[in-house]
């Protein structure tokens, strides 16, 4: 989230797209309800189905799953055509005025640089022109036909309401209502927020979906202001934290790219040269990176040995290490062992049957969870496997629940909040840190006597987390994350104090300053003071990275001169000598608006501006492409049907004459993820006891299906049996004049636990987003029939 949960109360209009916030992020509706009551805010729900979110929204705009870019592209077009965008914001705070490289073009569905043989893009032309001094060329009148704004206008000119609705299936009058309501937030005294979750990201164009939201927000001047922003609502309570700490395969903690096994990354100096930009806040990357290496290898990381840079594993740039790719490799027998830590791919993974089969190729598998998972039982008869043919040795380690251990979690709003242990875990369950700690210590013991250089990364691993052989001291862990001076061992105040000479340590620079002194009270994640009056920033409650900033890019909340755009939306202002207000400034607090870079709010960007034009795998502007499995054979925006750079692992795709319906998966409020926790909790199992699929009355009639029947849903990957809910909340959408039916189902169920049911992911494909390889769970082709 650029903003945070409580800040939703400050919005004038919430556009919920790719999310069923009321069901899956119920707390968001505490603040949205407040906004609605106190500010008369409008809530818009864009969703293929009528959800509990839709029930509490002012407008429900249905769209066909996988057509977000068309939907948002139309909004961008509407904002530009009807002059609803916030011009002043766009001119100075975004790269709208920048002049784009002459080679850039977009034609017939492809951006410039497309290589039809290799099926990749060379993106050199997706760049800006600079003058001789290296300054970006701009036209602040936005009239230059080669400026970003004009190219943007031209690109989305094609996304008129009629064409958009032909693709999305949204009734045009509803779509125009959404356009009118949401672009109304383009006024300086209004703000709108876009809330998204997995309904947005789990597509072959997932990253570009998010991009399109961000671009719309930039145009409407909605980023960096209270009640604005783009809100990534995380699927688990600590996904934000795990992402910050290097969850993604190409990232080290703190969003630092991991080095690759190429000559460009041979030495630390090479890495730093390659990864450090010339301008923007990332110029400090060497400080963050060096402090991270120091945290990992301590005294063994010295200036002489490149701070042990050579200990870091280097990834093969040709390889993909994402979830799907790992299971593909496992399926091919390339992986020997696997730790599944709080995961359940046999239920939650795409093409889950294949993933279960892949596990059977392992020598050993360790599963760690609160209850026995389907993954730990992938070999059983219930899983549809033949135990005799599987040789994988499976270990199941019971772990503690969140109330049974202390530590921090970071919520979607980047608030790192300390939690205290309430009860001991039952039986042999141990908390995760303990398992990790013992594993590390035992590995270190195992390699202690080795002389081999390749064992040094483990042998020399700096692991000094107290004297308890079983449990690390989590205060020490937190202190290391925050950062300290290596020599004096004093905690640093912010990440601004980090150095690139090996004198400082930080486990994750974005959390710098979270623990800014020696005492427990200095652990700001423990802060628990609520705001008495104000706009709900609660600066003394928990710690928000970076530097306790609650709203990112908050320079944008004030105009060029440093005055808030409006009294109602004031956040920060320049008082003549410094910035002050209701948040921690997102830049040097003494930098005057008139100083160089004084109107560059997006400090992480080399050019300091919001990226209306930015480099992504598919191109600089999001373009509508159909889901990999689509009910249509052509689309009006171009001849290119599917994202040309999507990560496709499947060899065969479903035919829309055999599988004519759009299938999608989702979660319900009552269950969580693969249901391991909730399907084993009697009170929750009671609320949603059965796996079901939802279809429209028209589809039910066509198929002779009645509400409550048992049905079989099939895709090219397999079929599942479950109950059916026939409901008016599902309606066929008119796609280019033809009705297209949608079939939706929760993916929580598996074959163990109190509430059991078929695994929806037996239907989903091994196909991923071009930038992140997030699986396309949300749009695939399927068929449905009565079970008997």
């Amino acid at each position, binding site marked *: 989230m650029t903003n945070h949960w409580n800040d939703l109360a400050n919005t004038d209009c919430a556009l919920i797209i790719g999310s069923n916030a009321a*069901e899956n992020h*119920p707390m968001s*509706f505490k603040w949205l*309800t407040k906004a609605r009551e106190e500010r008369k805010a409008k809530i818009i729900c864009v969703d293929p189905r009528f959800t*509990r979110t839709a*029930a509490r929204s002012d407008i429900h705009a249905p769209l066909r799953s996988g057509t977000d870019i068309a939907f948002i592209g139309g909004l961008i077009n509407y904002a530009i055509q009807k002059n609803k965008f916030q011009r002043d914001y766009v001119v100075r705070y975004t790269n709208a005025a920048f002049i784009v490289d002459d080679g850039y073009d977009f034609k017939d569905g492809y951006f410039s640089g497309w290589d039809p043989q290799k099926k990749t893009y060379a993106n050199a032309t997706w760049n800006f022109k600079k003058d001789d001094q290296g300054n970006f060329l701009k036209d602040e009148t936005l009239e230059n036909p080669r400026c970003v704004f004009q190219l943007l206008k031209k690109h989305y000119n094609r996304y008129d309401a009629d064409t958009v609705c032909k693709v999305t299936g949204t009734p045009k009058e509803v779509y125009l209502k959404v356009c009118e309501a949401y672009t109304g937030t383009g006024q300086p005294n209004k703000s709108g927020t876009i809330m998204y979750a997995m309904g947005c990201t789990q597509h072959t164009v997932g990253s570009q979906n998010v991009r399109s939201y961000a671009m719309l927000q930039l145009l409407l001047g909605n980023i960096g202001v209270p009640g604005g922003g783009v809100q990534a609502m995380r699927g688990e309570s600590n996904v934000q934290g795990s992402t910050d700490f290097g969850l993604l395969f190409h990232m080290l903690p703190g969003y630092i790219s991991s080095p690759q096994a190429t000559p460009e990354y041979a030495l630390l100096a090479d890495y730093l040269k390659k990864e450090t930009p010339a301008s923007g806040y990332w110029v400090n990357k060497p400080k963050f990176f060096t402090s991270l290496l120091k945290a990992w290898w301590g005294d063994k990381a010295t200036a002489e040995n490149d701070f042990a840079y050579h200990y870091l594993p280097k990834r093969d740039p040709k390889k993909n290490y994402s979830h799907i790719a790992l299971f593909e490799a496992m399926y091919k027998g390339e992986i020997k062992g696997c730790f599944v830590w709080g995961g359940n791919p046999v239920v939650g993974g795409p093409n889950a049957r294949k993933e279960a089969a892949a596990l059977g190729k392992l020598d050993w598998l360790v599963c760690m969870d609160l209850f026995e998972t389907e993954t730990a039982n992938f070999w059983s008869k219930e899983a549809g496997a033949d135990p005799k043919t599987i040789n994988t040795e499976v270990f199941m380690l019971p772990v503690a629940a969140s109330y049974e251990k202390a530590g921090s979690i970071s919520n979607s709003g980047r608030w790192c909040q300390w939690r205290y242990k309430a009860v001991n875990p039952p039986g042999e369950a141990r908390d995760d840190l303990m398992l990790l700690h013992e594993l590390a210590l035992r590995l270190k013991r195992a390699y202690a006597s080795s002389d081999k250089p390749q064992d040094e990364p483990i042998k020399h691993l700096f692991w000094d987390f107290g004297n308890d052989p079983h449990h690390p001291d989590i205060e020490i862990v937190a202190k290391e994350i925050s950062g300290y001076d290596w020599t004096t061992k004093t905690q640093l105040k912010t990440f601004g104090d980090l150095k690139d000479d090996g004198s400082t340590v930080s486990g994750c620079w974005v959390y710098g300053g979270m623990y800014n002194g020696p005492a427990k009270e200095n652990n700001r994640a423990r802060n628990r003071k609520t705001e008495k009056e104000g706009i709900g920033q609660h600066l003394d409650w928990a710690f928000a990275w970076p530097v306790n900033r609650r709203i990112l890019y908050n320079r944008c909340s004030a105009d060029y001169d440093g005055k808030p755009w409006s009294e109602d939306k004031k956040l920060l202002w320049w008082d003549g000598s410094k910035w002050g207000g209701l948040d921690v400034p997102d830049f040097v607090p003494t930098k005057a608006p008139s100083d160089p870079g004084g109107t560059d709010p997006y400090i992480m960007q080399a050019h300091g501006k919001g990226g209306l034009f930015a480099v992504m795998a598919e191109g600089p502007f999001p373009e509508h492409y159909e889901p990999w499995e689509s009910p249509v054979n052509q689309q009006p925006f171009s001849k290119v049907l599917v994202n040309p750079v999507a990560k496709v692992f499947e060899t065969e795709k479903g035919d829309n004459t055999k599988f004519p319906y759009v299938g999608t998966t989702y979660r319900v409020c009552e269950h969580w993820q693969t249901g391991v926790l909730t399907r084993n909790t009697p009170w929750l199992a009671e*609320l949603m006891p059965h796996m079901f699929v939802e279809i429209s009355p028209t589809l039910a009639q066509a198929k002779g299906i009645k509400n409550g029947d048992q049905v079989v849903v099939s895709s090219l990957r397999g079929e599942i049996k479950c*109950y059916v809910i026939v409901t008016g*909340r599902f309606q066929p959408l008119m796609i280019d004049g033809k009705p297209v039916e949608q079939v939706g189902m929760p993916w929580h169920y598996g074959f163990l636990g109190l509430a059991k049911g078929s695994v929806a992911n037996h239907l989903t494909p091994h196909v991923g987003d071009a930038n992140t390889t997030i699986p396309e769970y949300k749009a695939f082709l399927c068929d449905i029939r009565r079970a008997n």
Partner: protein
Amino acid sequence: MGEVAKLIDVTKCTACRGCQVACKQWHDLPTETTPDKTKFAGSYQSHPDLGPNTYTIIEFIENTNENGTQWHFKKTGCMHCTDAACILVCEKKALSKLENGIVYRDMAKCVGCGYCAQNCPFLVPKVNPKTEKATKCTLCENRVEAGLKPACVSTCITGALDFGPREKMLEIAKNRVATLQQQGMTKAQVYGEKELGGTHVIYVLGDAPEVYGLPADPQVPLSATLWQKYGKPLGAAAFCASLGTTLFAFFLNRKKDLAPKLHHHEGGKSHGV
């Protein structure tokens, strides 16, 4: 505290059902059945009705028509009426009215006759066939006594549930209805202000009560009133009159020699007693 009330604003409910679980947790109630014994409902609603182990449910009321789809979520449970039919018909005085308006149930006195279950205008109490006790929402009278809010209210995320002095809840409800009407929900209304002498669970409804399955004009059943106010005294009077008369006759006749004797005469009327 004077009279208290729980406010249920159905227009704010997102049907997360935290209240359902919080209720079970506070009262330590088991599930009604296990999933494998549950018939698929064909809806998101967890229980078709309240149950002996389920004091509150969210009813999912779905309606698709030419105006699109409406999906209403209505929290259902005891209304804690002032004119409580359940108290009227409870022969064991297991149900009683607390000063703060809560309809208190004394499980020790309950014999599970089910009179309350049938006579409640909202059909709320349920008899547990195992324990033979009628159960219903207690409005967490023990929490309220300790200065806490009912479990369901304390867990409600969106503010659809509130609890406090009845007058204050009514005021909030009326203000909310005014807001809703301004926003175009012309049929928005408060439910429970006057109904059954004023209930201690008050609804803010976005539409007519019938839309939410609530009776527009709930009444203590006429049969219950006739029964308790007239039927029982009348029956008791008839019994007592008969008993008295019989006893009177018994003592009157006790010493009399009225035994039939053989009369050796032909035909005609026999005389005697």
